[in-house]
């Protein structure tokens, strides 16, 4: 470098970019070879390389930070976004990108308060999700066959657990070795819980039926891995019942809230995990003894009852004596009775049969026959007698039947007839006489009233051709006239009438 070079810009030296970047790098690294910075962790990224990149910031500035793999693994409390931290390291530049950054040796929470505040926040979030809910808790198996233990393979913790298991009830134990502090603690623990759950029961790697996640006591930072969200989530998701036993009794980490049971110590976890075998043996033995005793008592009681009942039961012999005696007596009497009965019946038979002889029957028949003949003999006279009787009665009745009364009646009838005839004649004669008298009277009356009387007084009746002529014209017309006088009729002219001797009676002649 020529420091005295004259140029248009005076004596300002000229650098190449690399030279300048290198100068800056030297300056910064020299000036800030060891710094201690307080700030909030910003974005954190953890690529597979294992290095950790993060931002440190406050309200006005941001500085990029990098933590190499080895350093990160050593950390008790891995940095997390939002965490208030105190970091130490040296400043350096990254010339390729015109950047500067701090290479961290250490980063730790800026005091308990900051760490706890963050833990509280996380806890509240998980609780809001319901991960702590009592109903999520699974019941621990009473006697697990295989116990999976997630812990450091070396150290007091696993030894304590195994010892206590051995004391109580030796079991199969599968240890999943993990780092129990530092950066890799949380991911390894989470992975172990998930790995155990992925195993199949009875497989090459048999799946445990109980998990214990354990760690001995330590500082808050030491236990920090068990406060990580991934651990809490893995424990909450575990389908295998899980006991957490992290730190001492006073240490409560996030996993304790989500585990199915929390044990204050690893030893206590073993106690929660299995019952005491000897107790169980005692229990089973006791049960067996009680069962046998109960059964024995049962059988004894039954036997006693049976004996009692049997005693009360009379002997068969005794039961049979009475009836057997009766049977004997009756049996003895049976033929005798039978015989007696036969005798009695035979007697009745012979009594009956004795009187039953043909002569008796013949006698009876003869008696009946006699009666019959007798009756028959009486039959014809009786009939005759009856006939005579009837005839007599007929005769008597016939005798009473004579013509005299009829004749008498006829005579009486004739007499009455004659009488009546006489009276009829008399009546007839009288009646005719009466009528003749009346006729005379009437004839006389009719005489007096007739025109003939007028003839006496000088009047005449003129007739022409048979008819009374009362007019001159009539008289003229007539061929001849007849004049009737008191003493007879005079004919004038004409032909003589054939019979004009007696004038015809007038229209109104006799009343008869």
């Amino acid at each position: 470098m020529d420091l005295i070079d004259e140029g248009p810009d005076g004596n300002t030296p000229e650098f190449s970019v690399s030279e300048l970047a290198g100068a800056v790098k030297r300056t910064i690294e020299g000036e800030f070879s060891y710094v201690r910075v307080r700030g909030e962790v910003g974005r954190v990224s953890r690529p597979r390389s294992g290095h950790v990149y993060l931002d440190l910031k406050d309200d006005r500035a941001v500085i990029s930070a990098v933590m190499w793999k080895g350093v990160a693994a050593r950390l008790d409390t891995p940095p997390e976004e939002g965490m208030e931290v105190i970091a130490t390291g040296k400043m350096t530049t990254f010339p390729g990108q015109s950047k500067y950054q701090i290479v961290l040796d250490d980063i730790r929470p800026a005091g308990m308060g900051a760490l706890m505040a963050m833990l509280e926040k996380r806890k509240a979030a998980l609780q809001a999700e319901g991960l702590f809910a009592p109903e999520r808790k699974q019941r621990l198996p009473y006697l697990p066959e295989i116990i999976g233990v997630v812990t450091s393979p070396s150290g007091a913790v696993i030894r304590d657990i195994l010892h206590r298991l051995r004391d109580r009830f030796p079991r199969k134990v599968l240890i999943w070795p993990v780092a129990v502090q530092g950066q890799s603690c949380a991911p390894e623990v989470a992975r172990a819980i998930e790995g155990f759950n992925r195993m199949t029961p009875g497989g090459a790697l048999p799946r445990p039926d109980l998990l214990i996640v354990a760690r001995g006591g330590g500082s808050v930072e030491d236990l920090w891995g068990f406060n990580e969200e991934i651990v809490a989530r893995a424990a909450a998701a575990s389908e295998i019942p899980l006991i957490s036993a992290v730190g001492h009794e006073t240490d409560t980490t996030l996993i304790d809230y989500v585990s199915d049971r929390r044990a204050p110590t690893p030893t206590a976890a073993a106690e929660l995990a299995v019952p005491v075998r000897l107790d169980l043996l005692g229990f089973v033995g006791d049960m067996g003894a009680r069962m046998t005793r109960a059964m024995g008592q049962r059988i004894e009681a039954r036997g006693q009852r049976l004996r009692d009942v049997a005693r009360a039961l009379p002997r068969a012999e005794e039961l049979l004596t009475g009836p057997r005696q009766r049977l004997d007596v009756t049996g003895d009497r049976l033929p005798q009775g039978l015989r007696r009965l036969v005798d009695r019946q035979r007697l009745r038979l012979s009594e009956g049969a004795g009187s039953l002889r043909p002569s008796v029957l013949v006698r009876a028949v003869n008696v009946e026959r006699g009666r019959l003949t007798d009756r028959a003999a009486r039959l014809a006279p009786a009939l005759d007698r009856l006939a005579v009787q009837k005839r007599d009665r007929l005769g008597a009745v016939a005798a009473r039947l004579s013509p005299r009364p009829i004749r008498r009646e006829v005579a009486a009838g004739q007499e009455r007839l004659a009488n009546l005839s006489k009276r009829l004649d008399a009546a007839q004669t009288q009646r005719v006489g009466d009528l003749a008298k009346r006729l005379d009277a009437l004839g006389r009356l009719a005489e007096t009233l007739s025109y003939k009387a007028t003839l006496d007084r000088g009047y005449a009746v003129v007739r022409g051709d048979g008819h009374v002529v009362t007019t001159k014209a009539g008289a003229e017309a007539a061929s001849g006239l007849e004049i009737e006088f008191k003493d007879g009729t005079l004919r004038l002219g004409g032909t003589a009438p054939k019979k004009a001797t007696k004038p015809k009676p007038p229209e109104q002649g006799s009343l008869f």
Partner: protein
Amino acid sequence: MSETPVDEMSFEQAMAELERVVGALERGDVALEESIKLYERGAELRKRCEAKLKEAEEKVHAITLDAEGNPTGTKPVEGL
């Protein structure tokens, strides 16, 4: 009476059932015939429980992991 075959019972189930059977026998309120069946079942349960209690063998293995932290198998652990 539970119909679960004794062979399929867990230790805990077998124990609870045994306790129940003993209780029933002690109360003596079942018929003699039934109590004989109960006794037989109790004896079976007791055998089952004792067999389970005899299976008290300690076997401790640690899971071996590959570089990525995946389980590859187990190895016996001794001396703990």
